[in-house]
């Protein structure tokens, strides 16, 4: 019985990992506390639902179009909200508050058009297969395989491609990489595109299973932030590790107590980590003034 919970936890945790990785792509490199990410996450399944069920485009094309739409919205936030502030040399708190503003706007525009209630895209009852004592639905299988493929592709890309090397250089020292002739503005744009894409993929995978409402972004963003902190800020493997750990932990909380205490346990863990190991599991201790 407990294995069932752990398997569920790992699969949910991998999606946390995908979403946290998207957040980390922006936070690790640009140090922008991208709260509007919650809204970008939420938009994707609404676009998918509109295209797939509303317009009636085949699923594969709907997914591609929905992801492009999500990327466009992510870029809009970067171009309309963050870029002017960075040109203006605003402080990080100022950018964070504007990001909250952008999140509020996107959430309420969606709520205005689609309503506040929960919507489902996939109304069929999921078929499942049984491995030993563990039951896995096909939706979970899709979630697992897509997250795994995404991780493999991303980390290969990060390790071997030119873009990956530039990203790591930019993460380590933004000013120096700019001085050495790296086109940081272009790199930032690519990072925002990837980040929105990851949000969209994670979001649609979850929404396909349980549906969505306009307010799903914030709880997910909070889980992603906790995953990022306990994994460790800096390395890109960290949010994935953190996500899977949180997924397992939450599943165990459900097993031993009840689902009501998931959030309390998650955020207690966050505060414990902030206090005793702020660099996270994989991070190295850095002294900053």
């Amino acid at each position, binding site marked *: 019985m407990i294995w069932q919970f752990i398997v569920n936890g790992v699969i949910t945790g991998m999606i946390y990992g995908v979403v946290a990785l998207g957040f980390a792509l922006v936070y690790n490199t640009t140090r922008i506390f991208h709260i509007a990410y919650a809204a970008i996450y939420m938009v994707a399944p609404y676009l998918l639902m509109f295209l797939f069920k509303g317009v009636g485009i085949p699923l594969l094309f709907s997914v591609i179009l929905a992801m492009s739409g999500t990327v466009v919205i992510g870029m809009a936030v970067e171009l309309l909200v963050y870029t002017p502030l960075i040109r203006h040399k*605003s402080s990080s708190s100022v950018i964070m*508050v504007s990001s909250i*503003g952008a999140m509020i706007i996107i959430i309420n525009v969606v709520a*205005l058009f689609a309503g506040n209630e929960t919507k489902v895209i996939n109304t069929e009852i999921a078929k499942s297969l049984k491995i030993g004592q563990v039951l896995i639905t096909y939706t979970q299988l899709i979630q697992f395989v897509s997250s795994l493929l995404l991780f493999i592709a991303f980390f290969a890309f990060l390790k071997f491609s030119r873009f990956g090397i530039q990203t790591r250089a930019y993460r380590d020292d933004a000013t120096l990489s700019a001085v050495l002739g790296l086109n940081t503005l272009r790199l930032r744009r690519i990072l925002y595109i990837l980040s929105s894409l990851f949000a969209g993929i994670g979001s649609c995978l979850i929404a396909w299973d349980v549906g969505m409402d306009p307010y799903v972004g914030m709880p997910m963003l909070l889980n992603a932030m906790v995953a990022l902190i306990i994994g460790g800020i800096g390395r890109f493997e960290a949010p994935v590790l953190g996500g899977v750990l949180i997924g397992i932990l939450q599943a165990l909380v459900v097993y031993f107590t009840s689902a009501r205490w998931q959030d309390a346990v998650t*955020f207690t863990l966050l*505060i414990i980590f902030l206090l005793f190991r702020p660099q996270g599991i994989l991070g190295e201790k850095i002294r900053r003034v």
Partner: protein
Amino acid sequence: MEYVIHLIILINIYIILTTSSNLLVGLTNLLSLGQAALYGIGAYLSVLALMVFHWPLIPTLLFSMIITSLLSLLLAWPSLRLKGDYFVLATLGFQLIVFTILYNWVSVTRGPYGIPGIPNPKLFGDIEISGLWAFFVLSLVLVVVVVFLFHNLIHSPFGRALKGIRDDELSMQALGKNVTALKIQAFVISSAFIAISGFLYATYVSYIDPTSFNLDESIFILSALIVGGLGNIRGPVIGALVVILLPEALRFIGLPDSVAANIRQIIYGLALIVLMRFRPQGIAGNYAIK
């Protein structure tokens, strides 16, 4: 007329919330997202004193203020060891933990069902605060007291020390100030003030449930403060006026209620973005967050 009085009471509650948050955000540069949690703790403690202990007004208010400021140490202790984004995250964690406890500890807080029928507080003997006008006077008295104390605090050596931390923490340390102790004092005073608004809200509305004290409320309080302005007395007052009166203004334009809530939120969001770009100190503030 009664409608206007009702609005003024709400504005008063929010003036206390924004003013006490200003002490943290505007004077000490501590961007806390745990304000609604303290607001909720103040409200639930007031209800405890009123409904279980059957205390009159003044002991209830003092009880709520003192215990809330003690509990705020649970927020101050871990978060003050952190800086920047990490500080914000720790306060966020506190906010979510408190909300989960209020929501799920059903045997004590009645969780999502909320607590209805909160009795009117008794002033002395049998004089009860009941009806719109009594609450109007009570809230006005409390607002005047809070704003007056805040005014004195800003101009006191303590207030100047907090501003010193805000502007240059390292120099304050070099001057031999105990920065952590000062920040903890700021937290404690701010939470005691917030408990007052919790008390007012609980007794005036006479029903509370945890959703009035969630993360969105924290963000809302912070937006009200930032829109109004940071660092002085005018700012928070104007912020509270704007966030309470704007939805009423929208209602008079004739927007249907179903749409009005969303439009209002969109306006807040736009206001935050535009202000942060062109006027980061808010409408009437004299300090821009950094």
